[in-house]
């Protein structure tokens, strides 16, 4: 019998979950990763992982409310069956991680402690100090090492995915990868390939992401025919420490444990923050959003912080934008739960955040968009377990999971949902791939002619040789910095069509200059220069998908905010006026949904991405306007519900 193998590319939470589950199902796995998997970007996740638990249940919570919070927070842009399934799995996943040895914080009685995160009113988040991602990753790493010792998993660390190998029918039969030390290029035959390669924050130059999060693997799959969805939805995290080399995340858990965001009420107030009396401070999130306070969803918190600095001139530091994130009033036991992140601030800023308010500003953080993947809906509205379609990209046999896919977070991700979506998609896709392999047995990759693999490898080998030997006047690091600047300026928190067009023109110029990039290292050993230059080409590819998707989408939805197309919310006043304004507003929102509540799909063509749109499955929870903290939210919701019961299209 021929041996069927699966390739997993990427060893973060998603890749390791898939690897361990496939191994358990008896499938041998080749795990490829740029870095030793224990150093994957998942280590940076801090705050926690969301799941309904015994405590929230007794407060009226259930899986359906988690599902509702997630799609409402995501502005209804995600297909609902996968989200429903994920939320149903939440408690099981946290229990599993607990059994595997994650040192979740405990209550005095010995149960898992829980904290509150953004976009929900329940304390749904389990955590291990402020290093939850690291703890989850290490635990999965340990399980995969166990399978490695048992011979079920082969690790190829320090290998870079260059592209899928497709047969004459366009089915994925393996991958080509390069060893980043010896620079050897070779093909790895497999019957299914899973991309678990994370987000693409490096396109924005400085972000909270690790230095390998270029999106290169996704871009290479895209060029080979995979579709890319909702690329324009990029999460900008409200609280990061601005830095010269990167922006460092300051977890939402800092606010979950009671941290408060404020600025002095008077512009240019240079007093020591602790000397400013509370009456002269503006806790602007709490003022505007009394219900959620500092824990409004990230897109909203980010826009408010941006606004208070840029438009209201209340930044707390001259010549730089930032606001205070204040933990000084918290008791020591809260500080202890946040130790990991307080340490980061102290090490990089040289100031103790236990006694001095931190200075923070938003930074690019997460890619909601990603490779388009399929799913099979179950009769109950979740996912059909064991369906080979779940998580499969537009290329048969090529799968995508974790941050590399687009499936779970819509227009805005809620904090502590990413660890859940990564582990969920990794675990859940495995039985489907197992079945895909069983169905595909008649055409196993090992039976294919060696020539298919050899010619795929030869193509990439030649491309590398050409790049390494190239003389040119342009410097890849300089181009990357310019790419990051233009993307950050025009395609992040506040977007205008004029600004995005300016960036697209810059991308034309950068692509042109990219063709003249010279190699600073012609060597065939640990050649980081050429490897970086190659990934820059991939970043340019995805930058265009992101920017053009943003240009086309003339609306505001979640993280995508274009003031030109904003529907001004009702201002209030007497109940009659408010009701009239609410009606006008709800009608505008409905028109917007009719036009734009759809998935952006990009497909590769040599002349640039081709765009199309797909309807979103919102069959379980009807879309409704997000009214976090809005004046007269109850009346708006009432008006909306009345409108929904009246059949027919929205009035024009």
């Amino acid at each position, binding site marked *: 019998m021929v041996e069927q193998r699966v390739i997993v590319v990427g060893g973060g939470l998603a890749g390791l979950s898939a690897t361990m589950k496939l191994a358990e199902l008896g499938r041998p796995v080749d795990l490829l990763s740029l870095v030793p998997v224990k150093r994957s970007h998942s280590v940076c996740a801090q705050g926690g992982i969301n799941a309904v638990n015994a405590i929230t249940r007794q407060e009226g919570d259930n899986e359906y409310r988690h599902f509702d919070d997630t799609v409402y927070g995501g502005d209804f842009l995600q297909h609902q069956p996968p989200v429903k399934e994920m939320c149903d799995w939440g408690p099981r996943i946290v*229990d599993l991680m607990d059994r595997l040895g994650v040192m979740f914080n405990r209550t005095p009685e010995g149960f898992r402690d829980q904290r509150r995160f953004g976009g929900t009113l329940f304390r749904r988040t389990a955590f291990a100090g402020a290093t939850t991602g690291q703890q989850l990753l290490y635990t999965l790493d340990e399980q995969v*090492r166990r399978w490695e010792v048992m011979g079920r998993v082969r690790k190829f660390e320090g290998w870079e995915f260059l592209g899928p190998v497709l047969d004459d029918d366009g089915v994925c039969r393996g991958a080509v990868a390069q060893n980043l030390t010896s620079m050897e290029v070779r093909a790895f035959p497999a019957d299914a390939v899973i991309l678990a390669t994370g987000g693409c924050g490096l396109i924005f130059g400085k972000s909270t992401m690790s230095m390998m999060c270029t999106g290169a693997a996704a871009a290479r799959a895209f060029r080979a025919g995979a579709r890319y969805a909702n690329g324009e939805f990029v999460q900008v995290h409200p609280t990061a420490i601005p830095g010269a080399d990167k922006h460092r995340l300051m977890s939402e858990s800092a606010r979950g444990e009671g941290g408060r965001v404020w600025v002095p009420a008077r512009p240019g107030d240079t007093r020591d923050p602790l000397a400013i009396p509370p009456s002269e401070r503006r806790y602007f999130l709490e003022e505007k959003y009394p219900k959620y306070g500092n824990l409004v969803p990230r897109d909203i918190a980010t826009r408010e912080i941006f606004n208070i600095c840029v438009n209201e001139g209340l930044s707390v530091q001259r010549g730089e934008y930032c606001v205070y994130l204040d933990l000084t009033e918290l008791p020591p036991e809260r500080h202890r739960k946040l130790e990991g992140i307080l340490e980061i601030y102290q090490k990089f800023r040289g100031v103790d955040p236990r006694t001095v308010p931190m200075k923070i500003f938003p930074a690019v953080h997460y890619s909601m968009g990603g490779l388009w993947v399929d799913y099979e809906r179950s009769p109950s509205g979740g996912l059909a377990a064991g369906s080979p379609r779940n998580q499969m990209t537009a290329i048969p046999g090529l799968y995508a999971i974790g941050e590399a896919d687009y499936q779970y977070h819509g227009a805005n991700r809620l904090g502590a949902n990413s660890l859940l979506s990564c582990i969920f998609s990794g675990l859940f896709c495995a039985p489907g791939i197992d079945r895909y392999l069983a169905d595909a047995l008649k055409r196993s990759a090992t039976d294919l002619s060696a020539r298919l693999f050899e010619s795929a490898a030869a193509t990439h080998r030649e491309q590398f040789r050409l790049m390494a030997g190239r003389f040119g006047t342009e410097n890849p*690091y300089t181009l990357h910095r310019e790419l990051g600047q233009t993307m950050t300026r025009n395609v992040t928190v506040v977007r205008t069509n004029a600004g995005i067009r300016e960036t697209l023109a810059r991308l034309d110029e950068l692509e042109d200059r990219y063709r003249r990039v010279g190699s600073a290292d012609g060597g065939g050993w640990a050649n980081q220069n050429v490897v970086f230059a190659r990934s820059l080409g991939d970043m340019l590819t995805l930058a265009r998908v992101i920017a053009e998707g943003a240009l086309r989408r003339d609306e505001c939805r979640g993280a995508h905010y274009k003031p030109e197309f904003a529907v001004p919310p009702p201002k209030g006043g007497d109940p009659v006026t408010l009701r009239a304004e609410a009606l006008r507003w709800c009608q505008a929102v409905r028109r917007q949904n009719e036009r734009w509540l759809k998935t952006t799909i990009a497909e590769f063509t040599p002349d640039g991405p081709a765009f199309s749109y797909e309807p979103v499955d919102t069959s379980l929870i009807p879309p409704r306007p997000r009214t976090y903290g809005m004046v007269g939210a109850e009346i708006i919701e009432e008006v909306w519900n009345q409108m929904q019961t009246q059949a027919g299209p929205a009035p024009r």
Partner: protein
Amino acid sequence: MERTVTLQIRRQDRPDGPSYWQRFEIPYQPQLNVISCLQAIAELGRTADGERVAPVAWECGCLEEVCGSCTMVINGRVRQACTALVDELLAADGEVIRLEPMTKFPVVRDLVVDRGRMFEALKRVRAWVPVDGYYDLPTPRIEQAAQQESYPLTRCMTCGCCLEACPQVNEHTGFIGAAAISQAMLFNQHPVGRTEAEARYRALMAKGGIGECGNAQNCVKVCPKNIPLTDSIARAGRALTFYAIKHYLDK
């Protein structure tokens, strides 16, 4: 004149090649760390003398001191490059910043070393919880005190500082180092992990195990995560004594 930062970097083109020093100068900015210096050098592509050279190879990942990638020897001390702030280095050690690869691991190129042996050591001490499977089953209850004891040990990022600083880590002893011993003790504390405790004790008693520890206590001083490594080693030592006696009596 524009203020600059000078870095002296020990380079090595190939594992079997000789090492040599090169000097680089980059423009000074406030809040630089060693990573941003290396990024500037990669972009610059030339030495302080203006000679065009291949960019310096180095490893980095998170830049937040949680991934362990960028560990190197900076001004003679092993640490992560991301948290090595230029202003602090200049104030503490003078005008030139010296970067060298760690010495206890084979050099791949320049500042990149191969820390594979640390991951092999984790296999040897069976650093995992041997669960029945990945299905939904009840979870163990863990006391708050036990969590608080274990949590610091779980933060080990396999960076290699403790091995670099340890005089006993060398070719002759084959010592696995403090990191792996501490991980063995972490899993021996876990209610399910401890079912493999004896296998871990046997691994720690074998050549290159705890017997090689010379009690220099350098490991705990250089650990960037303040992991109580010497406590783990002491606990391992006591546990091994009991295990050895029990094993002897059971014979």
